[in-house]
């Protein structure tokens, strides 16, 4: 692999991945609550960071030649980023709901706000006089 091709590929993947991270950071200003911010963060870990990994792999290919260990390392890194960021977003969203973070008031319909049909919501902490 000659240097011009390596530079071009690293540039395409690296700059695209960096712009996806920057776009996620900008999108956090356009939404109003914590749940939406967790939601618009997924392009950064789902597509931006894999592009950075691919750029690093192409650089490794250019600098030290092909080896199976590098390929396996890159594939595992991409899989880990996708799976790990998904589980982490699930956990963070669940704890944001459980800890009572404010939800944007124009969220409609909000199926978490009311109990389902036919369920009587008894408050165990209510003072029974």
């Amino acid at each position, binding site marked *: 692999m000659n240097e011009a091709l390596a530079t071009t590929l690293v540039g395409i993947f690296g700059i695209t*991945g960096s712009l996806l991270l920057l776009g996620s950071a900008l999108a956090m200003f356009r939404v109003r609550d914590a749940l939406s*911010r967790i939601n618009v963060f997924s392009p950064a870990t789902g597509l931006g960071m894999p592009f950075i990994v691919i*750029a*690093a792999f192409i650089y*490794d290919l250019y600098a030290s030649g092909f080896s199976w260990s590098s390929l396996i390392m890159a594939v595992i890194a991409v899989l880990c980023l996708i799976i790990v960021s998904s589980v982490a977003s699930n*956990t*963070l969203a*669940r704890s*944001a709901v*459980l800890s009572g973070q404010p939800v944007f008031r124009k969220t409609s319909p909000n199926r978490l706000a009311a109990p389902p049909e036919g369920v009587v919501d008894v408050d165990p902490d209510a003072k029974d006089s």
Partner: protein
Amino acid sequence: MIVIASICAVILAAAIIIGLIRVLTARDQGSRAVVSDLIYFSAIAIVTMLGITVSSSIVLDVIFLSSMVGILATIALSRILTRGHR
């Protein structure tokens, strides 16, 4: 190659600065938690670009290990948000 890596590092630094402004103007704790996640991944990418700049041979090792342990900070923050409950 150095020019490309520098451009990427500048873009990622802009993302981190925008995230810090978001932390300053946020009103709830959940937004600050997710911005910390963004800053973590941007820092990993900056370290990768630094490795490309200085022609290091452990670029892939850095991004491999840090992508595997990246879940720990987020889970610790979510435990802090719920004050220890699962």
